[in-house]
């Protein structure tokens, strides 16, 4: 498993639209991607669970990538966070 920490820069946090983008992106990979904040976590393919975490701008989340093509998925999902969230 590979993971990275990320500070949310999007001013609205992980709201419906950014969460939707993330779900779309996450569905492209075989690896299981999990987003964690504090003691809450959600699979990146699950919209409502992501939204229910209530991640706001400035929050730090940990993103775990597990299984499948970990290396490649890790790099592109990190890119995705930096460009979209």
């Amino acid at each position, binding site marked *: 498993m590979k993971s990275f920490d990320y500070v949310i820069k999007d001013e*609205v946090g992980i*709201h*419906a*639209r950014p969460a*939707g983008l993330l*779900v*779309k992106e996450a569905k492209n990979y075989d690896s299981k991607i999990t987003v964690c904040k504090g003691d809450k976590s959600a*699979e990146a*393919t*699950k*919209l*409502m*669970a992501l*939204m*229910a975490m*209530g991640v*706001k701008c400035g929050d730090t989340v940990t993103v775990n990538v597990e299984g499948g093509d970990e290396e490649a998925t890790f790099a592109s999902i990190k890119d995705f966070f930096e460009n979209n969230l």
Partner: protein
Amino acid sequence: MDKFTGKSVFKGVAMGNVVVLDKKDKPVVREKITDTDSEVARVDVAVAEGIKQLGALYDKALKEVGEASAAIFEAHQMMIEDMDYNDSIKNIIRTENVNAEFAVAVAGDNFAEMFAAMDDDYMRARAADIRDVSNRLINILQGNEVVDFSSMEPSVIIADDLTPSETVQMDKEKILAFVTVHGSTNSHTAILARMMNIPALVSVDMDLSKIKNGTLAVVDGIKGEVTFDPSAEMQSEVKKQIKKQEEQAELLNQLKGKENVTKSGKKINIYANIGAVSDVALVLENDASGIGLFRSEFLYLGREDYPSEEEQFRAYKQVAQNMADKKVIIRTLDIGADKKVDYFNLGEEDNPALGYRAIRICLKQPDIFKTQLRALLRAAVYGNISIMYPMIISVAEVRKIKEIVKEVADELTSLGIEYRIPEQGIMIETPASVIMSEELAKEVDFFSIGTNDLTQYTLAIDRQNANLDDFYDSHHPAVLRMIKMATDNAHKAGIWCGICGELGADTELTEEFVKMGLDELSVSPSMVLKLRKIVREMD
């Protein structure tokens, strides 16, 4: 050809296909199911259909309103196919042996409640999205026809009755006319129809179940008639009428940019009444020189919790900025009476029009009031905002308001937040405020006469009661004398006085109002140029 008559709220003619809004949805009942597998399969089929419907909506919205507004359908699509949501529905079917409709309703409520409990206004509002998505699924499962305004062709809306929040949510471009079985000519829905400049009939005695979606209908707001399946002859006649209407609108367009001044040089401000931030477009399109009434309660309607200070601040700031340095008079919340909002927990009243509403709520629950005032004072930095307080009956109320405004200002100062205390005025809409207008005028910066309530309270006539329309004389001399009295007392104290009620748009009275010396008339945006024409033709 089937013809029905009703009371007209806007004198225009429209023709188009009918969309029947039948709110009598089939109730969701709990049924015992033995074959849970086939029930689960029904869910999958319904979800697939939902995704298809939402995809079609997305495509259409993308073309018509752009990506930002279309994104909501994409989000709904993801919600409807969300794994947790689907698992939860199927789990309920399997463990409780219930039908798919019931399981969707329960799962939808659970998820909506989860969002409603979050500590973030935006997320709380998403509860409505989940309910929307669940309703879509239930409608598909029940085989109901879904009325979707976003994908609707411009149509004639037929309904039992419409609440103000339902009316507001409709896309104004898609509505050719309204026809309702209930409602009176002075209800808020009627006022909205007038504002949107579309023909509307209320109190039409027709059987909704006999009217099919897609039937061609002619709504004649001049005769007060709606005709289903009009003859070819009638259709061509109506087309001519509509063309004339459009020519008239074009003529009025030519008055844009001209001053509101009589031949002898008497000037009057003609402002517009609005109820939503998006209405600013209509204000500018119709060349109003300001906003004389921004009904802030639309920020409070159609939602489940109070709008936050930030949300209000953004709305007020946006309107102020969009209007550049033109005047924007924002009325503090006027909830109560016929505008009910669940989360205010107002309770039942025997006599809501004479009850706990508007400024009375604000003075008894100052927290709600202060949130709005903070937002207004902060937004005032960004434009020419004025604040207007509704339902005033005494000088003591105005002094109390001023104290609260001062408290809010002091709080903002101590927090180092930028603000400005703008011009403040009151609505003159109770007989008490007219009679006390000499004293009140010394306390405030302006008066704006709310003729709808003033007429209702002066004549003791309930404006929601269709039975009383025959007694409701909007030109009653008692009301006109009250207007004169308030205007004279305003001028004596050196402040200005306007009208923001329906009477301000009454073209039969424009000349009289100018002669009375009123300084401002605030009317629905579509009436601004019509009044300008009358004023410019006056001696």
